[in-house]
């Protein structure tokens, strides 16, 4: 699957504002993993996603996808096997186009040519896919997406991404901009699709209950490092209290390290 070997990302290298956003990350995502990622602001969660997706190129290290080195591949090339959903629910779809046009574009990945693949056969296929959302969208296929709510558009983005069969999906707080009810719906759909279609995914969340409830593996990030990586039975036994305790334990330790470092200078 995806493997990060000793990956570092540095912003503003060589300037006084130099910021190590990721520090020597080693991570192996196995097939079928559903990883939840937590961490405070500035921990490097989004940078990790941007680096895997190819928005940022790492300053050091290697990224392997299916044992192939893709460290230098641009984002659009990696997008063929990596699906991604952003916090902004408008980023996954084109608002001034109809639902069926959007689904035609996302139906197959890669460059499009002069074929017209929207016909009654594909329309029927799209309709069957839309039924799974249980939002009644299958009756609104000619409507422009600006008419849809953020929750509906995020659910659609999720549906369209799932049917493009990516090897890895990256969910970057994809429910954070939705109201609680819609967030719940989209999250349930995410969980359902991931288990039903046996997908491999990573999800950033600020909600510790969600981080524990969903997925088979949990990463905690802080200061550009993965400070805690837990999976399987161990993860199942986690509670929010234990997680917070662990977080404080680790944070204090790094704090102390910093102090000794400063004292020595």
């Amino acid at each position, binding site marked *: 699957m995806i493997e990060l070997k000793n990956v570092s990302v540095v912003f503003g290298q060589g300037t006084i504002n130099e910021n190590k956003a990721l520090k020597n990350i080693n991570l192996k995502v196995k097939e079928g993993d559903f990883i939840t990622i937590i961490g405070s602001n500035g921990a490097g969660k989004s940078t990790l996603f941007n680096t895997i997706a190819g928005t940022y190129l790492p300053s050091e290290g290697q990224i392997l996808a299916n044992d192939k080195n893709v460290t230098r591949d*641009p*984002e*659009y*090339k990696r*997008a*063929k096997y990596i*699906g*991604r959903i*952003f916090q902004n629910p*408008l*980023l*996954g*779809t*084109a*608002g*001034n*186009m*109809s639902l069926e*046009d*959007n689904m*035609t*574009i*996302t139906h197959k*990945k*890669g*460059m*499009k*040519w*002069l*074929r*017209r*693949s*929207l016909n009654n056969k594909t329309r029927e296929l799209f309709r069957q896919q839309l039924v799974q959302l249980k939002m009644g969208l299958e009756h609104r296929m000619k409507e*422009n997406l600006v008419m849809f709510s953020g929750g509906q558009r995020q659910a659609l983005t999720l549906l369209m991404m799932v049917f*493009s069969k990516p090897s890895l999906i990256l969910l970057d707080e994809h429910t954070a901009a939705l109201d609680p009810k819609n967030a719940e719906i989209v999250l349930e759909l995410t969980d359902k699709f991931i288990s039903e279609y046996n997908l491999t995914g990573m999800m950033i969340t600020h909600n510790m209950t969600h981080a524990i409830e969903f997925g088979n593996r949990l990463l905690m990030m802080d200061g550009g490092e993965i400070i805690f990586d837990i999976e399987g039975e161990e993860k199942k036994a986690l509670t929010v209290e234990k997680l917070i305790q662990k977080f404080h334990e680790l944070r204090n330790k790094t704090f102390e390290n910093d102090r000794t470092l400063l004292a020595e200078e």
Partner: protein
Amino acid sequence: MIEGIFVEGLIYGIMVLGVFISFRILDFPDLTVDGSFPLGAALMVQCLLMGMNGWLALLVAFAGGVTAGAVTALIHNHLRVPNLLAGILTMTMLYSVNIRILGNRANVPILDQPTLLKQVTEKFTGIIPDEYILLVFFLVVALVVKVLLDLFFRTDLGMTLGAMGNNEQMVISQGVNPKTLKTIGVGLSNGLVAVSGAFAAQYLGFADVGLGQGIIVSGLASVMIGEFLMLKSNRIGVLTFCAIAGSICFYAVMYVGRFYGYLIHMTPSDLNLIKGVLIIVLLIATQAKKLKVPFKVAK
């Protein structure tokens, strides 16, 4: 006179369709147009002077326009130059190129060359009243271009171009390189502009390097008039129709200004001011239209 207005509106309507593609569909404000319009005219005139078949010459003009657009897109894509500046760069270079194509002259007449328009006029004399031949011809040409564009924007590639103008991240997420799309889109846009220039040269009877001056403003004004007059729709067929209708309205206003402007002591050089003022008025009118709709005030 009335047929003259329509003929002009239809010829420039092809250019307006090109401007519509870059400004509205691709969201790529492209100023190459000021150079690719006279480029089409120059290529047409030179090809005709060399004795080339008129339709073939039209194809050469189209190819020239596509190349000009592709150059702008490549400058923008690979040198990370803002799209406005990339267009200005190509436009400036095209000024010299156009003079070269015209054989180091700024103006080349083709009054005694067998242009496409003359061939068409000869063929249909007697069948259609003489003054309407060109009108019918350009109606057909504009309609063919419009229908071809409508078909193109309903293919997968055309839809993806539309999606890119709306949301570039979505296109990247679909594994499509937006740079390739921009090159295709801006190329197509300028190809149409050059075809329009090629027809304009035959209609006017000459090619001139100054033919394209301010053409982008005329194109944009026409697109905006079309949008203002017609219903809001996202159907490509309606949108392209609006662009052509807007062009006819705009060139009607310009026609009147040119021929009757002297009544209010207007000179042809005042027309650029009129174009600019027209765009400003349209912007204000569009805003006023929007304000009529009640909106919630954010607390």
